[in-house]
């Protein structure tokens, strides 16, 4: 089965490429069919946990966690492909896009099923470079470059850790190799820190988040959902490996313990907390909807990191479930924005407005997505954030719990901004004639919406798999019974929560239908009546939506300049080396040569 999936993936990459050369749209449909086939194929692997396949020098094995992550990624990839046929004419290299899309898909799935460390790294890098070449086809070359460099920082650290592990332990198998470090805390700490770095950069944990707004904001609209919903989750898997498979808690056993968490892990969790706060605050500030969602991914990456690093009954389950919830919600939100951008040509919120009148289904998709993203019941996001919060407060990790709470409340602010600025309010005259997104796109988006809803109503479907993962790791599994999700502090029945919310929704719907309708006011219909308005868009309330907030932290330091300065410093060092050692004048080189020989002769004879 596994072999078939791998061979199918490789063949389909070539097939999609050749087909796209003929007609890009056919290639786009091919990506849809291939990712669906991949999804079905991988879902059938659920029963064959433990099956191993060697493919030349790559070794794969089916694990529950790998299956879980692969399913998430494939879902995101699959739903994004519904948009592909409509974007082929916007891309300069459509055939390369389709082929690289499937290659990055193959890379990510391979990563989750990797049995040994080399396979893990090879699949990781393949996914990175192929996705970088896709990001390049968007609006910014610089963004793709920053994405690659940030990834490279993480990848090289991880490669160091992997090679050191293989060298020290003498085995490449992920499960066996890391055990070696049980007895050597110093080396183990080094390997842990280097290994998890690629996960941190990929998840966009502060201070490695700089690439996210750039890459997510300017990638092709069809790929931003995959970046945020899919590829970022590769980082979560690395975080999982470095804490659950790498014996991190044992290696750091003699370190200072903070509420039962060793200091190095706690420090990483704090970084996750900072990411939550920072991502939330920055997201509030953005005017571009895609950049806003990118910063929200930074914040949500923080939740996932904290949850997974806890490695306990509740927060760990929450972290793993949040991977799925955020993937689904974020992909849906990005796709909704892509649909809007397809019709209007922009993702700038101040230029949009009133889209609900023209694209009501897209609006619903976005609404459900952000409810889940903000962690409001009855959507999936609530359950996972609730579990993480439960875990944190149960351990008494007060700072992290505060950050988590802050992020939840802050997210109301930022998810509301696109909602009101893009979808609600007045419709600009130039958008009077636009239509709802194409039915095929709607199918892709509605699939995700349905998932978000289902995850909120019956989270236990997913938590059962997570409990299985926890049992395999030897930690207490999350308690589930029927539709009840229980923790040590209390339990929740999401079905009844949904029923209550459903009643509330129905009540408001009836009121809405019964009460008199409001009068629509056009964008041009403003209070400056009798005067001609030259710039109606400045009167749009999406313009400087959160002006007080923006003023509040407009002078805040940003992290990106630090990296820019570092780059500049490297160039300066290069310049220095060039003038000092690579100067065109040969006499300098001859001087060095003679001087060194004399020095060594004198020094050696001494």
């Amino acid at each position, binding site marked *: 089965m596994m072999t078939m999936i791998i061979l199918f993936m490789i063949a389909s990459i070539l097939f999609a490429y050749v087909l796209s050369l003929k007609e890009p749209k056919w290639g786009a449909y091919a990506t849809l069919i291939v990712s669906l086939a991949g999804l079905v194929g991988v879902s059938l692997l659920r029963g064959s946990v433990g099956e191993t396949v060697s493919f030349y020098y790559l070794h794969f094995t089916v694990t529950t966690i790998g299956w879980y992550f692969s399913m998430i990624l494939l879902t995101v990839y699959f739903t994004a492909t519904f948009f592909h046929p409509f974007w082929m004419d916007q891309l300069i290299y459509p055939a390369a896009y389709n082929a690289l899309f499937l290659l990055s898909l193959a890379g990510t799935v391979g990563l989750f099923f990797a049995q040994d460390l080399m396979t893990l790294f090879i699949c990781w890098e393949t996914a990175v470079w192929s996705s970088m070449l896709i990001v390049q086809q968007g609006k910014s070359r610089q963004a793709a470059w920053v994405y690659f460099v940030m990834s490279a920082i993480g990848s090289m650290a991880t490669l160091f850790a992997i090679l050191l592990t293989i060298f020290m332990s003498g085995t490449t198998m992920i499960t066996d190799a890391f055990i070696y470090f049980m007895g050597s805390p110093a080396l183990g700490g080094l390997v842990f820190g280097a290994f998890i770095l690629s996960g941190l950069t990929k998840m966009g944990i502060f201070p490695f988040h700089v690439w996210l707004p750039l890459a997510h904001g300017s990638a092709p609209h069809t790929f931003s959902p995959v970046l945020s919903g899919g590829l970022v989750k590769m980082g979560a898997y690395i975080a999982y490996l470095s804490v659950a498979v790498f014996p991190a808690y044992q290696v750091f056993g003699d370190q200072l313990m903070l509420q039962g968490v060793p200091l190095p892990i706690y420090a990483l969790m704090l970084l996750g907390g900072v990411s939550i706060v920072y991502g939330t605050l920055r997201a509030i500030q953005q005017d571009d909807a895609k950049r806003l969602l990118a910063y929200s991914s930074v914040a949500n990456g923080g939740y996932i990191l904290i949850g997974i690093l806890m490695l306990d009954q509740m927060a760990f389950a929450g972290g793993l479930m949040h991977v799925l919830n955020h993937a689904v919600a974020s992909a849906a939100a990005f796709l909704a924005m892509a649909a809007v951008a397809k019709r209007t040509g922009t993702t700038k919120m101040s230029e949009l407005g009133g889209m609900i009148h023209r694209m009501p289904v897209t609006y619903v998709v976005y609404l459900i997505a952000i409810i889940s993203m903000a962690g409001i019941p009855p959507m999936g996001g609530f359950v996972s954030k609730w579990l993480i919060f439960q875990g944190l407060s149960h351990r008494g990790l007060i700072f992290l719990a505060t950050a988590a709470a802050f992020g939840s409340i802050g997210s109301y602010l930022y998810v509301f901004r696109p909602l009101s600025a893009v979808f609600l309010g007045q419709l600009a005259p130039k958008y009077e004639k636009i239509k709802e997104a194409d039915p095929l796109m709607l199918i892709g988006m509605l699939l995700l919406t349905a998932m978000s809803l289902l995850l909120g109503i019956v989270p236990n479907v997913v938590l059962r798999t997570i409990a299985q993962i926890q049992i395999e790791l030897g930690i207490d599994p999350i308690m589930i019974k029927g539709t009840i999700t229980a923790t040590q502090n209390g339990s929740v029945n999401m079905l009844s929560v949904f029923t209550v919310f459903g009643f509330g929704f129905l009540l408001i719907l009836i009121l809405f239908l019964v009460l008199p309708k409001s009068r629509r006011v056009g964008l041009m219909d403003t209070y400056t009546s009798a005067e001609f308005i030259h710039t109606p868009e400045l009167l749009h309330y999406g313009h400087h939506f959160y002006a007080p907030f923006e003023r509040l932290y407009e002078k805040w330091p940003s992290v990106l300049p630090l990296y820019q300065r570092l780059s500049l410093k490297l160039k300066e060092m290069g310049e220095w080396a*060039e003038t000092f050692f690579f100067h065109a004048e040969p006499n300098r080189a001859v001087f060095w040569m003679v001087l060194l020989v004399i020095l060594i002769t004198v020094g*050696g004879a001494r």
Partner: protein
Amino acid sequence: MMGSIIWLIALPLLAAFVSVVAQTYQYGLLVVTLLMNLLVLFAAPQGLTIIGGYEPPFGISLLFDQYALIALLLIQVLLLLIIVLARPLAKNYTPVILVMLAGLNGMLLTNDLFNLFVMIEIVSIAAFILSTANGKLTHTFHYLILATVSGVFFLLGTVLVYAYTGILVVQGLMMRLASLPVALSLIPMMLLIFGMAVELKLVPVSSWAKNIYGQANLLTGPIFAAVLAPAFGFVFGRMMNEVIVLHSLTGYTLLVMAISTFVLGELAAYRQTDLLKTLAFSSIGQSGLAVMMFTLGAPWAGILLLINNALAKSILYGVATGVTAAYGNASMGVLKGVFYHHRLLGVAFSLASLSLVGIPLFLGFFAKVSAVMAIFSTGLIWVPVIILLTAIVEGAYVMRWLLQLWSPAFEGYLASKKELPQKRNVFSAQQILVVGVLAVILFTMGLMPQRFVDALQKTQPAMAQYEMVGQGEQQ
């Protein structure tokens, strides 16, 4: 008749003389010579060939082992493909290329230190003449000065070695040298290392490469980066295993030189805005990495790096010089988006650059991994840190170029065909085919690293033996 390895030197020399007379058939002669050399490579038995019946140490002998086979094969194949790629230019330099080929083969085969010096000089002179094809005589002159000074160093080193040991046979010379007092062997070793440092482009004597490589054309670029550079790398590898005894002082000097070549070369490449200059500094850096491997006693990681770099650079220089010639300039602005018009060249270039950086699925990755693993076994844990940190810089500038060459877009806007440069003719179908063949070779090697590695590891036993002997007597 064809069974003797000496034909590898004799044939090109003979062809060089004939080519001066028969000018019309020059190019054909060059191709035929290279093809026959390949034949000789497969027909000749491995072992020691004694010329003229004089046993060493009195006569000159040629050592043809697995190591020499790999080096010779790489060089004949690459040179053949390069002269087909740069046919119009190669026609004017046929005798020079043939003499250079004789020198290169001699350099890789000879088992005599003085003979090695002669061969290096032959290659250097041919390289000087070749570099005049760039049309910058000042640069050639600077190169000539440096290479000549280093030649003197090498000769002095050889003389001292002969004075102290009484023999010049390369094979096993290390054993004799290691038994000398440190104060005696230190100076010849240092002279020999500096004698090679110029051609190896080691800091601080690599300045010539900036201009010779950075102003290269379709002929000189690939030949310098993909034929001469690996050839000198292989010779250095041989020297490190058979001749040079590293004391702590020379060892650390060489290591520092190699590391700083790698780091400073890559840093200088990072700031370049000219494609050829970028590749020039990248060649300097990569040379430092290979030298590092040979210095640290991991020859086969060095071999892998040399092969990867040679193959990648032949493609990179081939495409870069071709595109530069067609579009007039190698600067970032001019070459923006040119690969839109030249997809196949673009794919080959991308493949080569991904392999150069050491991205998985390509040969460069396995080279990098074996390099780091080899260094771990020496216990120097900080060297891999430097290598991997520098690899980030290397990846950064290579990717910047790749993105620039593929995408014509203005920053902040989607790419459209309006921004594309006017299409110019870069290569003929035949030339594209050559680049394609090079790319396929590189890609296939990356696909089956294990088989490739197994073949390479056959070179290990013979070399490791001398290594052990040398180290044993050092202590």
